[in-house]
């Protein structure tokens, strides 16, 4: 062991040399020079809602030029808002779930089931409309709870769970309603509160429904919850990296359950908006609502992989689809092209999301 001390000195000396030559800071955040593409990428990465917002703006401008005053008129603008209200509300529910890296194929089914429950309780059973409304919202929360339990306790993938509950809730809807419609006139007579979301208020030439205002209020509420409360941060963290989230002390199962329950209740509010819009309680309504809500979320820039996306992006996504549908219809374009356009928008949106996600 005679050489041990010399060996040690040499090692230490080497180390000190390396230590001396390396930079002193532990970590610094340097200024870099970026190309235009990189700058754009940075911008969109930091502001994922910018892309759909730009698309919306361009679409409104384009259709205004093509169609003219009839498109840009405040009445038509508020009409578009009305037309996207139901999908917008369901989109809020869908956004919450997609933020947790899940997906909910049952939002439409929950909406129709709760609308039938509200209608039947108010008209057939004769409960006061307020009670019927609350019963519907409670039913929505319970439906969400069922989804949540299957995802957290049984650890089943959300896609599969909600695929199953979609069918189950829909079947329950048909069974409870006997496939029968409750007419608008019957509801107007017995439980006009259910129509409240369809009533309008005039505003500088625009006709806004209480349903649309309710939708905007819900967006604002959920935006607050997601951005200004610890719960919101935990929702993002759980979707982004559940392992990291639980190591940080977040109870991810509780977060997931809360998200599914809230989403279910929101779907029931969507049911109230549905009754206000179509007047009747129809067990066949909302057939395409599931996929429409996902479309709004995706076009709005929310990542299907979870943890990223702004709730207002979904509102913009819904408006983009609404503007295109309305604009193309006013322009007299065949309905086929409306479907084509929506499909194109989805692919472009997902492609952009993939590019933006790259770090």
């Amino acid at each position, binding site marked *: 062991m005679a050489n041990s001390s010399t060996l040690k000195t040499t090692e230490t000396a080497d180390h000190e040399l390396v230590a001396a030559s390396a930079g002193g800071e532990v970590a610094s955040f340097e200024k870099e020079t970026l190309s235009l593409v990189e700058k754009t990428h940075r911008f969109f990465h930091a502001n994922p809602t910018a892309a759909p917002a730009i698309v919306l703006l361009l679409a409104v401008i384009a259709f205004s030029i093509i169609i003219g005053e*009839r498109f840009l008129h405040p009445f*038509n603008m508020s*009409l578009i808002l*009305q*037309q996207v209200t*139901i999908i917008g509300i369901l989109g809020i529910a869908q956004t919450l779930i997609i933020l947790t890296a899940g997906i909910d194929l049952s939002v439409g089914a929950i909406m129709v089931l709760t609308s039938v429950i509200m209608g039947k309780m108010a008209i057939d059973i004769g409960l006061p409309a307020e009670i019927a409304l609350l019963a519907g919202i409670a039913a929505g929360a319970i439906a969400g709870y069922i989804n949540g339990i299957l995802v957290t306790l049984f650890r089943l993938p959300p896609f599969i769970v909600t695929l199953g509950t979609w069918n189950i809730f829909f079947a329950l809807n*048909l069974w409870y309603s*006997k*496939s*029968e*419609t409750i*007419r*608008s*006139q019957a509801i107007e007579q017995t439980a006009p509160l259910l129509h409240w979301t*369809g009533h*309008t208020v005039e505003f500088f030439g625009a*006709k806004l429904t209480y349903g649309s205002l309710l939708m905007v209020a819900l967006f604002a509420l959920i935006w607050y919850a997601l951005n200004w409360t610890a719960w919101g941060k935990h929702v993002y963290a759980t979707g982004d990296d559940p392992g990291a989230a639980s190591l940080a002390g977040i109870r991810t199962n509780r977060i997931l359950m809360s998200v599914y329950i809230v989403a279910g209740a929101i779907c029931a509010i969507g049911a109230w908006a*549905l009754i206000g*819009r*179509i*007047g*009747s309680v*129809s*067990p*066949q*309504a*909302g*057939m*395409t609502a599931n996929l429409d809500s996902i479309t709004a979320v995706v076009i709005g820039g929310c990542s299907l992989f979870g943890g990223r996306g702004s709730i207002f992006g979904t509102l913009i996504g819904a408006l983009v689809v609404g503007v295109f*549908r*309305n604009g193309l*219809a*006013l322009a*007299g374009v*065949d*309905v*086929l092209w409306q*479907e084509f356009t929506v499909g194109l928008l989805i692919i472009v949106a997902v492609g952009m999301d993939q590019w933006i996600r790259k770090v």
Partner: protein
Amino acid sequence: MNKKSIVQAVMLATALSAPFAMAADKPVVGLITKTNTNPFFVKMREGAQHKADAMGIELRTFSGKFDGDNQSQVQAVENLISAGAKGILITPSDPAGIVPAIERAREAGLLVIALDTPLSPATAADATFATDNFKAGEMIGQWAAATLGDKAATAKIAMLDLNSSQITVDVARDQGFLKGFGIDLNDPDRIGDETDPRIVGNDVTSGAEEGGRRAMENMLQKDPEINVVYTINEPAAAGAYEALKSAGRADDVLIVSVDGGCPGVENVKDGVIGATSMQFPLRMASMGVDAILKFATTGEKPQTTEGLDFVNTGVELITDKPVSHIGAKSSSEGLTMCWG
């Protein structure tokens, strides 16, 4: 023995054993609907079940998962063949696509009756029991024109159809309405190719309230002065009415529709719908079950209605504002005959 003859032997054995298996049981009749959600089909099924119970027949029901779901219907046909059914009643989702399966069923000796929608070609089925959808449209078209009187010449018409697929039911009702109103059809097998300036436009509703509302809103944006609305069915009409109500034009517009469902007839009573052509799905199903039983016992196949290549199950105009020379029934009478 080679593979082919083994298969044939097995099939022969199965075919021979089937009647032995079924001999002691009730005769089996299959009902395959497009979906089990549309009240039209729900009531059709109930009517068939009723008749089957009364006649001691075992009814097996199937349906597709959505309008256009051919695959489920094909499987249902195959199930019924191997179950040894005597006959099949089917509302085809894909009138052309279902034909090969239907041919197999007929080869196996089953009687196949198309309900509501003819197959493509119609002769692929032993018989078709359907509403004369063209006549249904024609009646409400005539009624609308007669109700407007002189104003029909300057009417503004919105056409609210089913979807963009140009299926027979959609085309027949749409074109029937236009003919009844007095508008040149151009190609009677195509929706939307007319040039009459009275037509403001066509839009699609998916046959439901939401679609009806949105289509009506968009049409009103194109021309706020619309005063006649043709709708593919009563749910779409109800949705269109909500849009008109919201625009404050509910009292100035004539809405016409087809179906004869009870909610729709109530809407006629309440003035939401001006006139509707009533169909008889229960009659369709009941006649269908009858025909199969007759075939099973006597081997006699059903005859088509004169002049048509299908058996007309009837259509009635329901309105509370009748016009002369168009036979109609009031909404109260309608409520005794309606379905749903």
